[in-house]
């Protein structure tokens, strides 16, 4: 979503983005004239008249589970967004019985919060597991 019109979205997709991604952008490119939606989400820059790089993960109940906002010159890390999405999905599927430690990816161990784990996380999770 940006403040550009859907006509400009079409031109950008059809003439440039489709040369980067086969078939073009696979999801809807939303138009937010005047930054109305961006204002509600707290990421519209009124001075510049543009949206900043806000990214919101919204769950199937419509609840915001996470967000990240960057100023324009630095691009996002899509892999990190996907990692977070997978972690939120895993936690939801566990009905909240599991939590994903720092650096978690699918297949890695999760934590089962409860009285027995208090003060014992150091036994089951090591700092090296963040990056392995």
């Amino acid at each position: 979503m940006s403040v550009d019109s859907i006509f400009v979205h079409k031109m950008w997709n059809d003439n440039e983005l489709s040369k980067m991604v086969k078939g073009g952008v696979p999801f809807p490119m939303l138009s937010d004239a005047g930054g109305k939606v961006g204002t509600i989400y707290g990421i519209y820059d009124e001075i510049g008249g543009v949206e900043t790089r806000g990214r919101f993960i919204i769950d199937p109940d419509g609840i915001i589970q996470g967000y990240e906002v960057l100023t324009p010159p630095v691009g996002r890390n899509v892999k990190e967004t996907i990692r977070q999405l997978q972690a939120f999905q895993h936690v939801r599927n566990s009905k909240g019985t599991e939590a994903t430690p720092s650096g978690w990816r699918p297949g890695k161990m999760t934590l089962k919060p409860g009285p027995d784990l208090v003060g014992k996380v150091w036994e089951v999770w090591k700092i090296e597991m963040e990056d392995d």
Partner: protein
Amino acid sequence: MPEELKVGCARPVGASSDEEKEPVITGGPEEKKTEKGVPMIKVGQKAPDFTAPAYHNGKFISMKLSDYLGKWVVLCFYPGDFTFV
């Protein structure tokens, strides 16, 4: 689920789904507001609903966030088309 837009000369615009209503105070008096009186976004709270025109698969459509209830959504904002990053 999204309806296709009839495109004329007017530039299609979207809206907050709450825009037509009187301003509603939700969440009680302690709810924090930004300077303009817009409720602050918080994790764990409902994503504000909106409708917006969109370009998708060669068509112009109107889409509404709440049509995607039941699915995971990644909503991304960016400064502008044809910018560099």
